């Protein structure tokens, strides 16, 4: 109701002044401006909770959409948090003493005796950002596909398939022979023959060395290499 909004906004200060309840009252507001100048809105179900070991106070955002008032608060050291479905707010430490109210920024996990930076009073709460409850699935993206290192490697290899023969052709035949011989020597057997990879022993944590059976595969590999050459 617009009428109520206006009345509440106008009389907000008055409430604070006229409140005659014996205990303390705390007031504050949720900062609705964000850095890019957009105005946030806080739903009426936005709860503001003031809590200590002894007491818990809960109030709601007033009809002006940002302010809140705690009434009848006894002296003590409280944690003030905002329970909102839409926004994430920092937690504040509020020390209510007979003389005045001190507000500090705090963080879960901090020792309670460790006070964070001092905050102004009336309490000002600026949301960190929107509450994110969800994960988002990654859709199909061609650009992302090409950013994948696996794809980049395979594309490179594919390119080499076409380019290498050309290079080989332009090479000196003796030099070529030398390279081929060197290659045949240097390729380790386990890599050269992935078919013989012992999955069971790998999972069992045993070092799957190129020991057993690899010599046979080595000669086999060499043989096949030779046959291809001829």
């Amino acid at each position: 109701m617009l009428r109520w909004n206006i009345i509440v906004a106008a009389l907000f200060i008055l409430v604070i002044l006229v409140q005659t309840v014996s205990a303390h009252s705390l007031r504050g507001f949720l900062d609705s401006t964000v850095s890019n100048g957009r105005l946030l809105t806080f739903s009426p179900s936005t709860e503001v909770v003031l809590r200590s070991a002894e007491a818990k106070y809960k109030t709601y955002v007033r009809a002006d959409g940002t302010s809140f008032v705690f009434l009848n608060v006894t002296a003590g050291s409280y944690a003030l948090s905002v329970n909102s479905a839409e926004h994430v707010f920092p937690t504040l430490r509020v020390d209510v003493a007979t003389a005045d109210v001190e507000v500090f920024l705090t963080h879960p996990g901090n020792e309670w005796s460790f006070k964070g930076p001092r905050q102004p009073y009336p309490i000002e709460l600026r949301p960190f950002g929107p509450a994110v409850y969800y994960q988002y699935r990654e859709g199909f993206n061609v650009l992302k596909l090409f950013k994948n290192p696996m794809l980049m490697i395979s594309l490179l290899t594919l390119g080499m398939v076409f380019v290498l023969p050309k290079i080989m052709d332009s090479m000196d035949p003796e030099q070529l022979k030398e390279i081929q011989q060197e290659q045949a020597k240097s390729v380790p057997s386990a890599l050269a023959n992935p078919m013989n990879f012992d999955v069971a022993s790998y999972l069992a944590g045993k070092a799957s060395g190129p020991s057993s059976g690899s010599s046979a595969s080595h000669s086999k590999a060499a043989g096949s290499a030779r046959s291809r050459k001829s």
Partner: protein
Amino acid sequence: MHVRLLSLLLTLTFATLVCGLFADEAFVVDWHVASIGSIDPSRAILSPDSVAVFSDSSVLASLDPGNGTVRWRYFLRESAVPRPSLLLKLDSSAILLAAATPADAAITHIAAWIEDSGYLIWEAYLTGGAPVGVSVAGDVYILQSGGKVRRVSHLTGSEVWEYSLPEGHSPVDIVASKGKVLIITRKQDSGLGYFTVNAESGEMASDRFVVVDKNAAAVSFSKSEGYGADILSWTAPGETSTIMVANLSDTTPSVHTITPKHLYASFSLASTSTGVVVAFTGLDGKSWAESYSSSRGKLTLVGSTDPTESASAVGAGKLFEISKGSISSFTLDSVDVNAEGTTEVSFPSSPIEFVTCSSSACLVGYQNGEYVFSSTTGVTWTRDESVTNVVSAIFMELEEEGQTASLGEVLFEENAAPLQAYIHRVKRHWNALAGLPQYLISFFHRFLSGDYDAVPIDPNSTVSDTFGFRKFIVLATTQGGLRALDTAHAGALAWKVDDVLQSDTIVGIVRSDAKDRLFVVGAFGSVAYVNGVTGKIIALSKIAQFGLGDKVESVITFTDDGVQYVAAWTAHAQLHFLSGSTPSKPVYFSKATESAIVGFIYKEDRLIHTWKFTLPTSSYRITSVASRDPDDTTVSVGRVLGDRSVLYKYLNPHILAVAAVDDATKSAALFLIDDVTGRLLYSSFHDDEVVDTAAGVKVVVGEHWVVYSYWSELATRGEKLVVLDLYESDIRNVRWSEGQNFSSFADTPLPFVQGRGYLFPEHITSLAVSRSRFGITNRDIIATLDTAQVALLRKRLLDARRPINREPTNDEKEEGLVKYDALIGNDKRFIVSHVYKVIGTEKTVCSPAHLESTVLVFSYGLDLFFTRITPSQPFDLLSKSFNKGQLLLTIFALLVAVRFTGPMVRRKQLNMRWGTQK
């Protein structure tokens, strides 16, 4: 801002272990029922554009009068109690709630709310007692039990004046009108009367206590609320044939006596434009109404209705009669009671608890917890609030549709002679061929439609879907009814039964040996045997030899040789078996009292008390007791570490976790006890932490671990989640049980316990642990929070082996361990209930789906919340992001590529053979 940076860092650290809900699964896999609780007619305001209610569960809500949905609601457990409280209209757009505060009944909390948006306008706390009466005449006038009268500004809630009643008066009610405030009180020796106070100044207008009756008994007060006059009514002590009334709107009120046609049991009085109308309920239960007109200082009977079985109530200027099958309305004028019309309506068959009406519609409350909002044209909406008062909830398995082989057939084939079994099997397959065309059609339909999700199921059927996501949740309500909700159709009501135990209150429901059968046990020994799928009551009986004045306290189940026995445990320490037979072998169980755990053995039809575990000091009290779900299965007896060595789990199904708090020293303690022998296996104490003992300790027992939580103030404020992992030995590969089952009576070593504490920023109200079908999937901890949310914590995250102050080694990384960080849950993606406001949940139950990966989770309390979780990712389910079109397109593209490159390769090979390649 370094705090923001820190949060961001934390978010990144746990990105792998926080598995938030996928945006496309929200509102699909989960549902939520927003409830308000039981409605009391004195705290319900009906108006043409809203229905405002302050329920017995301390929920202030505004309902849409058109469809009964909740427009807004607040759970005011911290600031307002339902009794005593008063709800009334502040003006055309705002409502006012005055209630005693839960912390101190001598303080009244008064708050004004905008009715359509739900914003709080103002609130105030007033000392001087609970609210007795509130009257709105521009400003708010409130009478409190401590004898205080206050005028409060209707714009700000600030006090204008205060007036104290003289000594010896007990307040009854208050009414403000035309610049004066009438305060009705009772004085010890003078009886019922009233004061008049000046509304402007707050001073007594006339120094006189006007006595209206010296010895009035039950007093009720009908305020005009803008319609008719303010009528005070009361009865003479012990009198059931007359009612005394006084019109306080008159300048000089005079007392009238109403003598109804018949003797009455109760009455309700409403003022009309010309006089009063009284709705009576007779001694025989029948009700009628009488209309009186006031003229020249006299009340004369102008008309009445005939006594009927229906309930009647008066709205503004109209009389309504609600029977089982119809709603009738009557207009009231100075001449007669005129029947306006009757509409045939099908109302619930449960007995009516109350009827309250506005000028056009009535809200009817039924004893089974249903509320019907009906106008003279028919039922506008129905709300079932019985689900807010749940005693116990249980998942019911549904049969899968079109199963080709029944269990019996498969068992026959496994056990019969090979030839017979073979013939049987061939026959079965031959018969199944008849369904092949149907299968092929549905297969291609599914293939083309691309819908690989749970197949839609007819909501009226009682079959399960392929994945077992559809089950019924049977709820036992405090009103003695059963409700079955369909998990696959947003909690739609599958069936309901009211008053199952014939006015006995339900203590518990348990599944019987037959999968679809339930035992419903009542406090006074009634037992109903119910079909959990259809809701049909198969048998209703009483426990034989049930002790006089005895009461069933809980229902216990025992499993002996695969046979399940259900027993009722009573207050007189009796054990009654419900299924007739008793277990042949001795069975062990324990019961918790306030400060001790007592062990029993049931052997040869005798109950023997065996052991007692008492808490260390008398100031401790037990807050919760937990044991492992008997249906939970273990697939791996050990935990494999990074170097392939094994820590063997301490798998004892008899572990009882007992959590206790000490209110005096503000400390908490946890004890692990063997349920059979009472042997203490482990204990931990949390002294010097300033524990919130009122919130207690919440505890769950998983496979070989225990997780408990409590709120404490030191060293840092927060909910402390402690995980204890139990192993047979701290030495790797060492196992004293040597793979054999060990007896609780044997002299076994104590478990090796490894523990870690974690910090959770929000208050946890209850814990539960998920259970998958075969126990292969990880387990998740489900926590209901004080912030009206449900959080999901990975057990992998709550690990007792996470390395502290160093990065995990390669072996530890392989084990899935991450560096220890005390703070968890500082990320909204832990919240599985996402944007739902799930208020007042107190308990969570889990049930596995047919898929190993998926667990169905249901939280209840005030609201109901259901979701499906996959603690180890949906590994056996095609992901939603799976794109069939894309896959087919890729295959097609490859085919085309092969078609084109094939000739090229062939040509090249041919050239090679011919040696023509360059």
